């Protein structure tokens, strides 16, 4: 074995075997590495791609990043079917099996307490988009010719600005209310930075990008509440993603920097 070890997750021993054909990043088979009652889920990755320098370069290559992220998520998804995994951040790489075991030894206590906290929970992502920009809509009416006077022009500008502010306030109020409602149903919540339209390719402006930690047993109810609210606000769009492994709720381990 000459490759490095890519670690996807730490979990309790699986009650069921992993899918036989499960492959991870770089198409390598995924295996379980047991250590003192926990397992690390790992696969071998080539040093030429995952040593520090090549990895740094690769992470700035979006196609590579996308393929790696999807492979990582594929493994986490498969684990989520059979257990509650503690997902590690993308591209956590060790020299060999014994280095992985050393890490597990050192972090054992934290792994156990976090696994305990997350057991039977999943993460749901909820985003709210402002679909229309009223200023643009009204501005679409030809501004030339009609502005009979400077006063007319200023009045029109003022109306546009006000309409814009109204919509923003409404969006903000809706997002705040939704977040409060969902937080009450969830055990924990995190606000992610709003996504830029260029990155997401989604229409409209992202005004809320939140994650909620919800027990599996309460997920149906959670999804229903989200589903119901989406018709409450014209001009706003609510999107739900999940269930995810609890990526947003595993936090930092003591002694590790962000």
């Amino acid at each position, binding site marked *: 074995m000459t490759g490095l070890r890519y670690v996807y997750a730490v979990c309790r021993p699986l009650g069921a075997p992993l899918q036989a054909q499960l492959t991870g990043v770089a198409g390598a088979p995924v295996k379980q590495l047991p250590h003192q009652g926990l397992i690390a889920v790992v696969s071998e990755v080539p040093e030429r791609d995952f040593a520090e320098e090549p990895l740094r370069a690769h992470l700035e290559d979006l196609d590579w990043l996308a393929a790696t*992220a999807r492979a*990582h998520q594929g493994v986490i998804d498969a684990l989520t079917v059979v257990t509650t995994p503690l*997902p590690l951040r993308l591209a956590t790489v060790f020299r060999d099996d014994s280095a992985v075991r050393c890490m597990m030894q050192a972090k054992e206590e934290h792994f156990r307490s976090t696994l305990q906290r997350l057991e039977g929970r999943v993460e749901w992502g909820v985003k709210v988009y402002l679909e229309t920009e009223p200023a643009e809509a009204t501005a679409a009416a030809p501004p030339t010719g009609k502005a009979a006077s400077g006063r007319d022009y200023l009045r029109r500008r003022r109306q546009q600005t006000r309409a814009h502010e109204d919509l923003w306030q409404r969006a903000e109020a809706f997002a705040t209310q939704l977040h409060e409602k969902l937080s009450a149903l969830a055990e924990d919540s995190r606000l992610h930075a709003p996504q830029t339209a260029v990155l997401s390719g989604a229409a409209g402006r992202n005004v809320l990008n939140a994650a909620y930690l919800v027990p599996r047993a309460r997920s149906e109810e959670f999804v229903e509440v989200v589903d119901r609210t989406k018709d409450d606000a014209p001009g706003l769009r609510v999107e739900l993603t999940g269930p995810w492994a609890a990526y947003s709720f595993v936090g930092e381990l003591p002694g590790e*920097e962000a």
Partner: protein
Amino acid sequence: MTVVERREIALVDLLDRLLAGGVVITGDVTLRIADVDLVRIDLNALISSVNAQVPSPFDIPASIPGAITPSTPRTEESP
């Protein structure tokens, strides 16, 4: 359509979690993922990739200036 309809996970949602979430452990490869600034990723590459790999349910690609269609070979340009 319901909000729970399954579709391919958007890359940006994935990266929200894989780059900003997950347990942070310093491996033997001591790369701090926080050092990798997404802004440095070539914007055109990003847009072409979003269009090609993560078909949006909404019709936006045409409105993005400089968007590269999936059939066009990607060129490396600095932002």
